[in-house]
Structure formats: C-alpha cells, structure tokens
C-alpha cells in the first residue's frame, strides 16, 4: 500500500515537474509547479517528517508560488504580449542534463541499497525540531532570521519605482 502511494506521488511529481519545464505557457508552468510541491510534501509525510510536510505546504505553496505568480502577472503584459515563452539551446542543455542525471543515477546504482537496517518510524518530529532550534541550531537560526530581514528590505528597495520617475 505504501509502495503504491509512493509510486503514485513519484509519477505526479515527475509529470508536473516535466510540465513545468516543458510547457510553453508560463501560467501552466506555475500551476503544475503547485502539484510538484504538493507531491513532495506527501513524500515528506511518508518519510515521517510531518513538520516539514506542513512547512513545505505553507512556505512553498503559500509563499513562494504566490510570489512567482505575482512575478508572472507583473512581467507579462497580458493584454499586449502573449504568455508564451521560447526554448533555446535545447540540444546542448538536454545533453548536459542527461549526462548529469546519468552520473547521479550511476552513483545511486553502484552504492546499492541503503535501507537494510530499516529504522523505526518517528512519532512526531515537532518537539525535537523545536528543541534543536533553540539549543544546538540557535546561531544559524538567528543568522537566517537576519538574512530574511535583509532580503525583505532589499527586495522592496530593488522593486520600487524611482522617485524621479514618480514625480515626472
């Protein structure tokens, strides 16, 4: 049963990721990215990472995908320009990606099966993650908080209009 669910999620993830990469319409790309993120959240839940599954849905689907959709709306004049985008350098890009994928799969193949010891499933990870956040990972946590603040200030500074252009 779990194996069947895993393969179903894998097919959903791969198909929607391929639709994201190959679709000519950028709106279709953004919405198939949604299904890819949801499938990854499902795999997190199957790997007993419940907190990360919820975080994936909140951060990626609720935050990053919404930002990307805003970017699509703001950078395509929908009435004037078509939403279609082109592909270039397809053969060299495909070659590089295929060689890299073959290398990765070869390494996975020669390493063999990892999961022979089959550790027991965790109950819930929320308490452990919360404890680790304020003890062992306190400094990275604070640094990431400052980085997010800097990113918000910088993004709003870059994306705003020039003062002179507003006045004129």
């Amino acid at each position: 049963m779990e194996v069947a669910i895993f393969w179903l999620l894998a097919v959903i993830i791969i198909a929607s990721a391929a639709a994201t990469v190959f679709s000519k319409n950028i709106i279709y790309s953004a919405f198939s990215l949604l299904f890819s993120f949801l499938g990854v959240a499902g795999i997190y839940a199957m790997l007993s990472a419940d907190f990360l599954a919820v975080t994936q849905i909140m951060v990626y689907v609720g935050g990053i995908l919404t930002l990307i959709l805003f970017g699509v709306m703001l950078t395509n004049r929908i009435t004037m320009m078509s939403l279609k985008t082109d592909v270039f350098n397809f053969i060299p890009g495909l070659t590089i990606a295929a060689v890299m994928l073959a290398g990765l799969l070869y390494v996975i193949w020669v390493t063999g099966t990892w999961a022979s010891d089959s550790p027991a499933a965790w109950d819930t990870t929320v308490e452990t993650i919360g404890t680790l956040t304020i003890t062992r990972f306190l400094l990275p946590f604070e640094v990431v908080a400052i980085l997010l603040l800097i990113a918000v200030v910088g993004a709003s500074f870059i994306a705003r209009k020039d003062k002179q252009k507003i006045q004129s």
Partner: protein
Amino acid sequence: MNHNIDAVIALSAVLFGLGVLGVLTRKNAITIFMSIELMLNSVNLSLVAFSRLHNDITGQMLVIFVMAIAAAEVAVGLAIVISIFRNRQTADVTEINLLRW
C-alpha cells in the same frame, strides 16, 4: 517506506535533472526561477530521505534552513526581474545584456 530510500534518492535525482534542463534551456526568467525551486526541492527531498535512513533529525533542520534561504532568494530574484522588466520591457534572458561588453 523502509525499503525504498534509494527510490526516493532516484526520484530526487530525476527532479534535479529536470531542474537543470529548465535552467539551461528556458528563456523566460520566471521559468528559470521555477526550475531553481525544483532543484532546491529535490535536494530537500534527498536530505529528508537520508535523515530518515540514519534516524538523525539534523537533516530536517538543514531542510528548514534551505527553505528559508529559498524564500529569500526568490524574493530578491523576482524583485530584480521586475525591476529589469520595468526598464527593458522584457523578461527574456537572451535580451538582457546590461552586463555584456
């Protein structure tokens, strides 16, 4: 789910390959962002799989930090794309040659 950690790793490799293909071949900057998000997701997936395999929660902590960095990256990157679009009326990376001489 105990016996196909290697299947999860293979899934993550395929997802990473699709992301690389998107970054290398697409023209629209927003689509390139989506492909970068696909690659970050695949790396997160393999981190969670290894964390499950070794029964160690540190991998999941790393995934949380990767998510935070991804949010910061996409905010700043989209701000740059919108700013360029306002000046050049295009989001096509083959026509953005401000830094080329």
